[in-house]
């Protein structure tokens, strides 16, 4: 007996190894993202971290993991009523709650007050704009299950000091606004609960049919203008065996969403019922059938953003716009007022609009402002530069106000606006190259001011106009505006449509002062010199007259002080300009302020070492900025070649009239190449100069996004040395690749060898990231545009690198395929939307193509999992490259060797890198082909022979001659055994079958998650490209 038990023990220990020997993919993660195996390198053998990572990987992927974990979770829940699954909270009597909602039960959200106010304000703006367009809008928050059934939550301690949830804060913020279109459900559902009917199922996170009906009745009461129209909603309980989404999560399975992101439903068809659109989440699944009974027709969109970016809904088509948001997901609500106003265009009837006087702009730090014909010229040195718009009117209970800014940016960038309210909060706006219009709702608090940081990059921006839009419910209310604001006020009684922005910006804003007027800046020292003892400043006429290019009111930083402070202005109606030079380096002598004598010193904002600027054609315009003291006259700059100091671009005046201690200008047409150094100097005192010490170049920037196989590009393999012109940017530093990362180095080196110019990778890949929300495994998904998302991090990173790139390369899809339920259509729609409505909108096209080239690397082999979702993802990727302009299949990968589960071997990454480089060269016109042969068709030669025609691209023939793998012949959805697959001639492959064919037959090559590619078909081109996967009907 002891022997038997001993053998059983050893046998148990050997089970995983035995399973692994017979089926290495037995425990491949399905419906979850597995940990990648740690990278092996020579020093890893003595690296503790390697073994730790390996231990975690082993524990995550050993053969018995899935059944054991399932058993453990079952025991935990069924026996101990507990779980280690962080997403689920187990309450009393088997009630399950989403963990996220428990955060709301704890009522610890007081730190989010500013966010709640911002959401409330944006909702109010949404309501006003939609109503001003003649449509109706309603908003509701679907209460958490824990809000309605707190008695089953179990013990959840609350922090008494705060005692507010996000919902509480939102209600408070909403209550402070004169809102009328908010459907409040929490109290109604609590009342309905007293009837002892369950409104939420025990194992579900969202309300059931009954709960949804209560909500629907409340909605109906609120939206129907005439109570006589009210109808009795039909309740039809849905028989279901669904164990509940939380139960599935508890056992380790991801909940299938089951519904498409955009759905169109027929409604009552009655003309008096409106045609509506609903933005909602998973609560909508049960609510929608009731809403259908209230609307003529209804479209439902699953999106966190209104209007959504992907689905292309045209809100002008709808009479009724309804927004539903789950209480626990209030944080993710994103209202895009700019898009909304653009969409409604001239349909929004506003009561009043008038220009906001740009004289109210004041410099806050490191910025130069000057009024010119075209508006307010803003010279910004990047992040430290901030200016303020003061004396903005607030919204009030009668009038809601929006501030519209029309800003011209020299490049794409991200503008940050801070509302200086009691609890200051900020928001950011994406600026395109050229003119961007942004709309800022003005809060209900006085006094109003906003601080604006124009962008992350230095440049000369132009605030072409600022306007106040007023929306009023009551046309009798006449608001008193400050006299200086009333310049172009329209008749309040006459409602005018929102003008087309193009025509408006062309004409420029109406200004109440001379168009040549600029502001004057003075320094402490000047204050001291000119102070007449009474504190009143007397301007120095002689200094003003020195400036031939400016008017007699034009500002001039004729300062000899390194510490510029607020100055007063010659005209009392003009505001002060403040400049904070705290970031300036101290003088060599120390921190002493320079004397009043006219010494000039110049400091330059040097570029990050190794930075690469995106070329525009064969050169680039480089923005140079910095600070100065004294009177430099103009500032000129030149470009030298690094180390040799050969002049690449000769001295060029970049800023003829710097102001306020800041200069910003452009060196045009710096030729592509590198490395370079920069020099700047004063045009009047050439000894006053600054030399850049960092090297930089002009070349090709490639944005890299996707998941782990893109990440592995930069880490797996040490077989190559990177070219000295190759760099990587991760949002902070431009670093060398050294010898690590076969894929990236192979790709970059090949481009550099062919073109001889620097190549920079902007690496923003994220391990395990999905494309769609359903493929969010905890590390984010790319369709998410909310603040803090991986996508916004990507956009911000590209913006830091200049905002423009020449190519985007994506290696993604595994996380979506791991869901197991993804369809080709879903992934294709998502990818198309991602390319055309996100990437190409937010990233500047630095290429010569009409659209920013987007290169898709087809998803790699992924052992295990279901074949269909993998094939669906790859099919979708292929289709997108065919339908979306300037989107290219960068590489096929199925023939490449795997390492571990879903990553490639070091050598395979080199091949992949070369293939992507080939595609880039093809797009640039340097190569004639980039794709391998494809299946052109198949026909039956005789009962047992099929002939497959091959269409070549780069090659003329292929190998191997026989015993090719990866082929499948399917008749009536079953595989037909193959006897032989061999090369017939350079354009033909013949497949001999074991049995004669009778039914309709398909052939397919490399299908599914892990097709057999031990002997793939490869052409004889220089790139040895594989025959692309495909299928064809046998004629």
């Amino acid at each position, binding site marked *: 007996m002891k022997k038997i038990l001993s053998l059983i023990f050893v046998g*148990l220990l050997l089970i995983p190894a035995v399973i692994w020997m017979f089926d290495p993919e037995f425990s491949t993660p399905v419906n979850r993202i597995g940990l990648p195996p740690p990278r092996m390198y020579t020093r890893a053998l003595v690296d*503790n971290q390697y073994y730790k990572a390996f231990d975690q990987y082993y524990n995550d992927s*050993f053969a018995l993991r899935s059944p054991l974990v399932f058993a453990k979770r079952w025991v935990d829940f069924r026996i101990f009523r*507990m779980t280690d699954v962080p997403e689920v909270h187990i309450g009393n009597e088997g009630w399950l709650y989403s963990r996220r909602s428990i955060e709301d039960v704890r009522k610890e959200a007081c730190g989010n007050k500013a966010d709640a106010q911002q959401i409330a304000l944006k909702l109010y703006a949404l309501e006003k704009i939609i109503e001003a367009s003649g449509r109706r809008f309603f908003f509701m928050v679907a209460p958490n299950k824990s809000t309605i059934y707190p008695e089953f939550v179990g013990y959840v301690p609350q922090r008494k000091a705060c005692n507010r949830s996000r919902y509480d804060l939102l209600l408070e913020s909403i209550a402070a606004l004169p809102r009328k279109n908010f459907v409040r459900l929490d109290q109604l559902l609590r009342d309905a609960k007293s009837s002892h009917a369950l409104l939420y199922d025990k194992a579900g996170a969202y309300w059931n049919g009954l709960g949804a009906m209560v909500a629907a009745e409340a909605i109906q009461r609120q939206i129907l203008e005439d109570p006589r129209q009210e109808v009795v909603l039909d309740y039809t309980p849905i028989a279901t065996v669904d164990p509940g989404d939380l139960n599935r999560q508890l056992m380790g399975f991801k909940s299938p969403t089951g519904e498409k992101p955009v759905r169109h439903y027929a409604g009552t068809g009655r003309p008096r019922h409106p045609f509506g659109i609903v933005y909602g989440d998973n609560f909508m699944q049960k609510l929608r059938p009731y809403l259908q009974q209230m609307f003529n027709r209804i479209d439902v969109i699953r999106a966190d953003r209104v209007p959504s970016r992907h689905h292309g809904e045209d809100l002008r088509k709808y009479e009724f716009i309804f927004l539903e948001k789950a209480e626990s997901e209030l944080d993710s609500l994103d209202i895009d007022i700019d898009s909304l106003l653009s969409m409604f265009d001239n349909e929004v009837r506003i009561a009043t609009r008038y220009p906001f006087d740009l004289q109210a702009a004041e410099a806050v730090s490191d910025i130069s402002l000057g009024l010119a014909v075209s508006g307010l010229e803003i010279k910004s040195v990047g992040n430290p530069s901030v200016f303020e718009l003061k004396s903005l009117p607030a919204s009030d209970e009668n009038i809601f106000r929006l501030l519209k800014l029309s800003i011209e940016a020299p490049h794409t960038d991200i503008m940050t606006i801070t509302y200086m309210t009691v609890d200051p909060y900020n928001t950011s706006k994406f600026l395109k190259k050229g003119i961007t219009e942004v709309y800022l709702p003005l809060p209900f608090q006085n006094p109003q001011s906003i601080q604006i940081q124009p962008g992350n990059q230095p440049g000369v921006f132009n605030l072409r106009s600022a306007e106040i839009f007023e929306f009023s419910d009551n046309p009798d209310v006449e608001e008193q505006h400050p006299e200086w604001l009333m310049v172009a006020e329209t008749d309040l009684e006459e409602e005018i449509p929102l003008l087309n922005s193009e025509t408006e910006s062309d004409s420029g804003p109406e200004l109440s002062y001379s168009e040549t007027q600029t502001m004057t800046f003075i320094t402490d020292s000047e204050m001291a010199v000119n102070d007449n003892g009474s504190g009143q400043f007397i301007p120095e006429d002689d200094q003003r007259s020195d400036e031939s290019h400016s008017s007699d009111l034009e500002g001039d930083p004729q300062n000899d002080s390194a510490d510029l402070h607020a100055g007063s202005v010659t005209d009392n109606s003009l505001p002060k300009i403040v400049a904070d030079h705290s970031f300036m380096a101290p003088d060599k002598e120390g921190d002493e302020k320079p004397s009043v004598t006219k010494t000039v010193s110049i400091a330059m904002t040097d570029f990050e070492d190794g930075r690469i600027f995106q070329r525009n054609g064969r050169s680039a315009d480089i923005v140079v900025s910095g600070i100065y003291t004294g009177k430099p006259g103009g500032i000129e700059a030149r470009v030298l070649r690094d180390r040799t100091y050969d002049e690449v671009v000769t001295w060029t005046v970049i800023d003829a009239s710097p102001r306020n201690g800041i200069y910003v200008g452009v060196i045009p047409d710096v030729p592509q190449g590198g490395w370079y150094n920069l020099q700047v100097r004063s045009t009047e005192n050439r000894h006053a100069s600054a030399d850049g010490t960092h090297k930089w170049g002009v070349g090709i920037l490639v944005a890299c996004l996707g998941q782990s196989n893109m990440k592995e590009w930069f880490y797996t393999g040490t077989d190559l040395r990177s070219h000295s012109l190759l760099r990587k940017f991760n949002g902070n530093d431009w670093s060398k690749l050294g010898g690590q990362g076969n894929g990236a180095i192979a790709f970059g080196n090949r481009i550099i060898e062919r073109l001889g110019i620097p190549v920079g990778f902007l690496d923003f890949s994220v391990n395990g990231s999905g494309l769609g929300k359903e493929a969010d495994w905890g590390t984010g998904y790319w369709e998410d545009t909310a603040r803090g998302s991986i996508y916004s991090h990507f956009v911000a990173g590209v913006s830091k690198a200049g905002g423009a790139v020449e190519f985007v390369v994506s290696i993604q899809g595994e996380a979506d395929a791991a869901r197991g339920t993804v369809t080709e259509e879903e992934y294709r729609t998502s990818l198309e939307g991602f390319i055309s409505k996100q990437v190409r909108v937010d990233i500047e096209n630095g290429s010569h193509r009409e659209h920013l080239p987007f290169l898709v690397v087809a998803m790699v082999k992924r052992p295990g999992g279901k074949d269909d979702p993998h094939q669906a993802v790859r099919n979708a990727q292929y289709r997108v490259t065919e339908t979306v302009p300037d989107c290219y299949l960068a590489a096929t990968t199925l023939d490449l060797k795997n390492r571990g589960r879903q990553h490639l071997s070091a050598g395979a990454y080199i091949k992949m890198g070369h293939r992507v480089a080939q595609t880039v060269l093809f797009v640039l016109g340097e190569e004639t082909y980039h794709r391998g042969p494809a299946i052109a068709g198949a026909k039956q030669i005789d009962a047992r022979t099929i002939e497959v025609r091959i269409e070549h691209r780069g090659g003329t023939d292929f190998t191997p001659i026989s015993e090719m793998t990866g082929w499948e012949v399917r008749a009536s959805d079953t595989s037909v055994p193959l006897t032989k697959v061999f090369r017939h001639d350079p354009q033909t492959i013949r497949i001999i079958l074991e049995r004669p064919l009778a039914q309709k037959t398909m052939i397919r090559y490399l299908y599914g998650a892990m097709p057999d590619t031990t002997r793939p078909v490869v052409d004889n081109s220089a790139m040895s490209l594989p025959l692309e996967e495909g299928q064809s009907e046998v004629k």
Partner: protein
Amino acid sequence: MVFSSTFFLFSFLPAVIICYYAQRLLVPTRLRNATLLFFSYLFYLYGAAGFLLILIMSTFADYLLGLLIDRDARHKKLWLCLSVIFNLGLLAYFKYANFFVAEFNSALVFFQYFPIDWKEVIFPIGISFFTFKKLSYIIDVYRGESPAMENIVDFALYIAMFPQLIAGPIVRYSYIRSQLKDRRESWNNFYMGILRFCWGLAKKVMIANSCGQIADVIFNLDLELLDTKVAWLGAIAYTLQIYFDFSAYSDMAIGLGLLFGFKTTENFNRPYSSVSVTDFWRRWHITLSQWFRDYLYIPLGGNRRGILRTCFNMAVVCILCGFWHGANWTFLIWGIYHAVFLILERVTGARSIPLEKYRAVRRVVTLFIVTVGWVIFRSEDISQAMGFLGTMFTASDSTLSYELSRALNYRNILFLMTALTVFFLPGNFSGIKFLTYKKDRTALTAGALMILLLLPYCVALIAGGVSSPFIYYRF
């Protein structure tokens, strides 16, 4: 590598068992120690990759020094000193250098001097244990209690044998010398080893980890969120965790030794049944206590030089024992704390009271003293210890934190309650003895259940949970 990890259970352990017994079948006894040594070094490489060379080199040095002591009688004291300095030097550098430099820097800063620029030394796991084993060998050879080991493989295996390498028991050279050369593997030993290993695994994965979850949450709470009941719960949970964690490791180490024919000294004997602190140290970490007794306390004079010297000797031993656990003031204070009670018991004669007298009361008092001691031991620093103890002994009441409410689930409570039985069971009760020594059908059935049910459940807990290394791994 942790015994309670899937890699150890499903890869390392089957591999070492198969290789060991495969070579036994092919070349009886000749390569069995070499096989174990190879796997022991692999084991160490996996856990402390950067320090394997140090282990090998220091083993080689002590092997040579042992031979010199044995063969060069004239200079054996010199070789002994060399070895002691070498071993304690390594230990001091790797384990205590960071602490002393940090304290010295604090003093420098206090007196407004610039601190020393110091790159933190990484602590090689197991160094406290294998250093003591090497010292035990060298001293035994010096004393002539055992001859020096001729075979370097045997010696290296004694130092590095993977079951005891990381956290003991600190097996004395004299105890294991004969087994290294001549031991007999048998099915009975193998089966006993399996049961002992599974018993330890269950104690670790089910009980120690459950108690640990509760203790960790409580000791990580801000002091203002702590109240009296929670503080006591934390103290008790940690008291149970450290016992079940360390004794589980010892059980597994003993079990693994049995798989390969080694019989290893016991390390625990129901310490929470102790009737005095003196008794506690006879039952807790027995091999360490005995090491200090034989190689420090007795050479210092033991109890033969009067009561004052005896008390001094006890204080030295306790302080060093505390400091052995780690370079932190809390360990030092914990050592002093125990020294105070040991001295009190000796001075008052309490240690001489017969075991059976006032047993229940004395058990409660001893448990109380030990529990309070563990609070000092577990705290990150003195201020946390003082704050925690202050909360334990002053009445306060506050709401449970959310994290603690999650940790206090039925599973953890059930295993905590199960663990609590060690406070009440008779002092001579042993579950593992029942399983391994009772030759009847019940024991076999229990053994079968342990292998067929408990083992899979433990593995499921490991696979589905977060890796939790043994507490004594960091000592």
